[in-house]
């Protein structure tokens, strides 16, 4: 049985992280920015689970599961904010959301 070396997983993780970072910096729609953030979180999870496999240890998978729970919480808050902004008839563009007064 020939497995896959750890370095392949790390390269995939870097690639996905770069894509997510590019998405966050280029997009101006908060929904699409959240999607790109999900990409970055997933790339971090690949690295965590890959190192868990490398060291024959469950700890990295625990980190990955905690990251998933935090991602779920982040998406709930982020989408709640998006809906709240939309209900006030504001444009969904992060450059326009520069006022803190409600």
């Amino acid at each position, binding site marked *: 049985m020939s*497995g896959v070396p750890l370095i392949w997983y790390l390269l995939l993780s870097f690639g996905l992280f770069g894509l997510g970072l590019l998405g966050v910096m280029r997009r101006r729609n908060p*929904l699409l920015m959240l999607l790109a953030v999900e990409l970055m979180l997933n790339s971090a999870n*690949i690295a965590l689970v890959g190192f868990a496999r490398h060291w024959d240890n*469950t700890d990295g*998978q*625990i980190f990955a599961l905690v990251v998933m729970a935090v991602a779920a919480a982040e*998406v709930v808050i982020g989408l709640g904010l*998006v809906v709240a902004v939309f209900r006030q008839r504001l444009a969904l563009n992060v450059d326009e959301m520069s006022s803190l007064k409600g």
Partner: protein
Amino acid sequence: MAEQVVFVIAAAGALISGVLVVTLENAFRATVALIVTLVSVAVIFLLLAAPFVAVIQIIVYAGAIVVLFLFVIAYLGERSPPGMEDRLAPYQPFAWIVVIALVGQAGIMLANSDLPGLRDEPQATGDIGSPEAVGRAFIDDYIVPFEATSAILLVAAIAAVLLAKRAIKFEGGR
């Protein structure tokens, strides 16, 4: 060999659909592309001897989070802001420079790394990914992070309810 073939297919799927997530203008299509990425990452987790994390990836990410995205997109409709000028457009090359520099640094770091076993065939592992192993690790060693995570989820649920309530009050109770 079989593992490497599966890895290449899953990694190609993840990267191609990741590019689509970042480039597609339609939010609905970008979300569907994200589903492909998430399922590909779940396959990667299976290759990494983490079946429990793979199943949770499918249930929580591809199930709950993506459905939440799709609900919000359906609620907001296909209203893309027309004629909005992008004030940051002149600075987009800098985004590319930052990303290329970061990924390049990571690649150079990997190329020069002398971590033992980084480029070798992975060793056989014991039982590290079954629900039993993950559960034991949570209860034995990581009980405090576990409880902190549940507190975070509770706070997020309360915050979501508060955000929705305030929005209703602004609209006069609709």
